[in-house]
């Protein structure tokens, strides 16, 4: 009998190490006694001239291994006693790297490619320079895809004065114009839903009630009109109720959780939804109020901007106003931070915006600079991280609420002086109304892709974002990320303002340098805007 030492069989990708002649003689092909083995087993003879022949003892030995059920390293052929002393046998294990293509190639064209990962840093050389380059590409792509303008909603026959967001429907927005018309828009279809001839003269202010059923408008004709937007009445210009006031009203704001709304005009008045006579009438000073805002969180607080350059805080729970801040220049608009109830931002006539903590009005938290003309309107993002501002310089700027400079500046050739801006409730879009009768819709993040984003795309975007963040301080990347092309008039104005600012600074410095030490105190720019705080 001259059986071969081993039969190496390949059965379905599994290597079976068959021992001796047993598998061959077993007709049924029962390999239960064989052992699955990850490598191959090689046996050879160094000193013998030919191949080593296995005689009965050797088979016996092999069977012995077989009886052990799995291969035991310590029992080697060399340790066999007896006749084998002359022909020494050694064992050697060998395994070659051999990949089964089936595990690496997809089966059909419809399958995804099989991707193997090995995160060993040695296989990914030049990690840092490559990441830097990727970050550079990402930030360039960001600028390439920065197309913020979505659409223009035209329909007004005069300049837009105000916009109001529907509290429950993302796509519904109302806008009022100088000719007294109110248009309710559907942003998704970009079409007008209803057009109401609301007032004689211009529409001054608008607000939805918390349920969104009623739209309350006030106008030049000293009336407050309540419109039921869901019914057909409003399409026929029939208001569900009209309140005729004795004095003119410039602004209106609805509480978020009750039926009360507040109007600002010559006096500040609190109205209950149904009554024709105001519940409370109050005022501080003589000048008219051109902006009132209910705090969306602390719902008893009201902020108001007065023409005597002051910002006044009212509380509905007490008869008299709480605080009054007088600034150097008039505040055109104020908006409460929807997340930090005690913070608000005021858009000032002096080209800047000021964020305040209403508990300490004498010192603004941040002065937001960038506009080159009076800031007309401001609105917070629902997340409270950002706000949008519209200015008389024909640009919209987006600021991060704790930062001095703007993150983004939007402008178009045709957009004229801004009258109103609003951040939508999903924090993804910005609505702007301007002098030249149009309402515009913008993306809040200029390079964001619209529509459904697939998981892989999303992962890639996230990866790019983190890379951008990682390398943001690099001069090249910072330069690309921060650069914005602005119209010539803005560019020149900004340059001019910079020169003016430097001049002021220089003058201050010189004055301090040439005065007796301790006599001249230089005030921070943000403190210069504050005149006084009254309580």
């Amino acid at each position, binding site marked *: 009998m001259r059986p071969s030492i081993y039969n*190496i069989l*390949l059965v379905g990708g*599994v*290597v079976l190490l068959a021992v001796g002649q047993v598998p061959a003689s077993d007709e049924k092909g029962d390999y239960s006694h064989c052992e*699955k*083995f*990850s*490598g*191959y*087993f*090689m046996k*050879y003879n*160094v000193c013998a001239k030919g191949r080593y022949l296995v005689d009965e003892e050797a088979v016996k030995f092999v069977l012995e291994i077989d009886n052990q059920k*799995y291969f035991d*390293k310590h029992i*080697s052929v*060399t340790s066999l006693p007896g006749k084998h002393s002359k022909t020494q046998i*050694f*064992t*050697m*294990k*060998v*395994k*070659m*790297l*051999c*990949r089964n*293509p089936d*595990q*690496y*190639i997809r089966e059909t064209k419809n399958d995804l*490619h*099989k*991707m*193997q*990962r*090995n*995160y*060993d*840093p*040695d*296989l*990914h*050389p*030049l*990690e*840092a*320079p*490559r*990441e*830097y*380059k*990727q970050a550079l*590409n990402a930030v360039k792509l960001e600028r390439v895809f920065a197309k913020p303008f979505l659409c223009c909603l035209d329909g007004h026959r005069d300049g837009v004065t105000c916009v109001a967001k529907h509290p429950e429907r993302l796509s519904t927005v109302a806008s009022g114009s100088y000719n007294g018309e109110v248009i309710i828009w559907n942003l998704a279809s970009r079409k007008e839903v209803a057009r109401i001839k609301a007032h004689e003269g211009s529409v001054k202010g608008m607000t939805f009630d918390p349920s969104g059923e009623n739209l309350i408008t006030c106008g030049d004709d000293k009336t407050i009109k309540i419109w039921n937007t869901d019914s057909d009445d409003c399409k026929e210009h029939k208001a569900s109720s009209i309140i005729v006031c004795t004095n003119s009203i410039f602004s209106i704001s609805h509480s978020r959780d009750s039926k009360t709304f507040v109007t600002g005009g010559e006096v500040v008045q609190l109205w209950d939804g149904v009554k024709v006579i105001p519940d409370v009438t109050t005022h501080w000073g003589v000048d008219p109020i051109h902006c009132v805002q209910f705090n969306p969180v602390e719902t008893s607080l009201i902020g108001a901007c007065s023409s005597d350059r002051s910002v006044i805080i009212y509380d509905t729970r007490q008869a008299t106003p709480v605080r009054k801040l007088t600034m150097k220049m008039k505040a055109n608009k104020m908006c409460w931070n929807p997340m930090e109830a005690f913070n608000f931002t005021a858009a000032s006539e002096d080209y800047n915006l000021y964020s305040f903590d209403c508990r300490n009005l004498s010192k603004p938290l941040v002065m937001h600079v960038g506009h080159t003309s009076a800031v007309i309107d401001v609105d917070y993002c629902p997340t409270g991280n950002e706000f949008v501002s519209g200015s008389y310089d024909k640009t919209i700027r987006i600021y991060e609420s704790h930062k001095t400079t703007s993150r983004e500046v939007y402008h178009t050739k045709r957009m004229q002086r801004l009258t109103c801006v609003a951040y939508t409730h999903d924090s993804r879009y910005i609505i702007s109304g301007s002098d030249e009768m149009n309402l515009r819709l913008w993306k809040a993040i200029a390079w964001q892709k619209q529509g459904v984003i697939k998981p892989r795309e999303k992962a890639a975007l996230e990866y790019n974002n983190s890379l951008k963040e*990682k390398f943001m301080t*690099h001069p090249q990347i910072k330069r690309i990320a921060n650069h914005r092309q602005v119209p010539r008039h803005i560019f020149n104005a900004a340059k001019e303002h910079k020169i003016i600012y430097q001049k002021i600074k220089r003058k201050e410095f010189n004055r301090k340098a040439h005065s007796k030490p301790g006599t001249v105190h230089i005030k921070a720019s943000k403190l210069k805007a504050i005149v006084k705080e009254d309580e």
Partner: protein
Amino acid sequence: MKAEKRAKKPKGGDKIKKRFVDDSLVDEPKIRMKRRKFQPDRNLETKTLLKFAHAKTSDEIKKSQPSAMKKNAGDEEEAEDKPLLQPPEVESKKLEKYSRGEGVRVRSYKSKTFKRRIANKEKKIQFSTEEAARNEILMTETSGFLESEGYEETSKIRQKQIIKAVDVTSATKHFELNLEFGPYRIDYTRNGRHLLLGGRQGHVAAFDWVSKKLMCEINVMEDVLDLKWLHTENMFATAQKEWVFIYDNEGTEIHCVKQMHKILRLEYLPYHFLLASASETGHLNWLDVSVGKTIAGFQTRMGRLTHMAQNNYNGTIALGHPTGVVTLWSPMVKEPLAKMLCQKTAIMSMATDPAGKYIASCGMDRNINIWDIRAMKPMQSYRVTGVPTSLSISQRGCLAAGNGDIVQLYKDCITVPADGPYMTFKCKQWTVRQVQFCPYEDVLGIGAERGFSSILVPGSGEPNFDSYEHNPFRTKAQRKEAEVKALLEKVPAELITLDPLAITEVDIPSLHDKLEAQKKLLYMRPPKIDFNPRRKNKKGGGIQAAKTRQILREEAKKDFIKLIKKNKPDMLVPVGGNKVQQHAEPPSVLDRFKAKPKKKNQIAI
């Protein structure tokens, strides 16, 4: 009570063990084998875990029911499951492999918010390192090996025996080509799938060596001194008698690069898209193959450049010189970034390891020296028989040295000294001219005088590739996509420096930089004042204006001198000054041999 517990513990252990084995039967055989290998350890671990679980549960029970401390089977089951659900801890050795270096010390920051931010970032980095280490479990392939069970030396095994033992697919990876136009230079693609052969007498062939499918075979009718694949298997460059030529995969000549003249060696930097060439006249040249522009080219003043290798770690080019010096070059600097005296005699062959950490060189004195390139220090030195004329290091640290018609292979010879050769091979095609390991395969390619042979070297190649980096199985579409991506992410040549991580670090001026800046101040001139006073009353004023100008200029000069005095470094105090005398050593007889202080330094303002 205690006795009962003790009795139960092993029971629980047995249960787990049983379940464990049952599970393994269901699994794939390979995984099962692995598990079996580690079974004793795992069991120990489970046992200890169990102990912990028991202790915990018993504590809980004590708390809830102090009187009745009976345990039922259900409780025990729960106790067993709990610890097993926790992710296993990663070995510290593995973590080290994936670590990106020591973290930032959070304590060193003063600002609270910044501290928190840094701490969070550190946490993320640690998490990612751990995850990367854990990912190893998903890798399907294990590396090859050749191990003796007894006293046998692996170096005595012949290729024939290996081929007989291994499977058919692996056996086909051994082949020999007898060719007449030698000596041959060879090059594998980065994914190890394609092979390029270039005979000195003009024979150039490109083929998929796994499937043995020929892509092209041409005779360029000129000397071929070296050749290299470019970024894909669709293009390759050859250094011919006069110039460098670029061919496509069908052997069509695409470009003749005349900026590269009389080139002896070529290297291709895939991430930078740079083709580097070393010439007979000592010129070093980098060509950006994506735009066809020479990035840099200069005279190294090092003579004939016969040995060249690239450092994958940072993209620098290493040159070996007859003085035994190895120099590292970047296209941005006309001087070598580093010079290492790797050999006492002329360098006969040189190779870098694929990770770019080590460089192996061999001199006339038959010493193979292995150096750590990053730390610039020697690692190992081996004395070999004969002078190896070609070296190559594989991904798993296997060193091949070709000497005459013998190729000797050393395993694990870099970090720890190797006892003897791992394998030896006698080449049938006469003298070995070039050896190169095939990436991701257990194969060594040998370009020889009379042809080419591919031999099996178990355990040399990296078993698990990363498909996003190099994929031996990539399709045409994948290749196209990867090509576009790679082009987009082309690393600028300016970033080739000794330390590739420099770009992620904070740019703090070193002491040297500061001193240089201060030295510069000495040679600066006071600023020119160009001042035209405003003439308010529009009358005369010429003299007054001149006076004002004079005053302003003097003021500016004063300020300038003040500034320089303020920034003046202590080191620039005159040599005869007090400071130097104070620190001076006692005079000695040997002082006369010291270099005299230069007068240049005696600058005082």
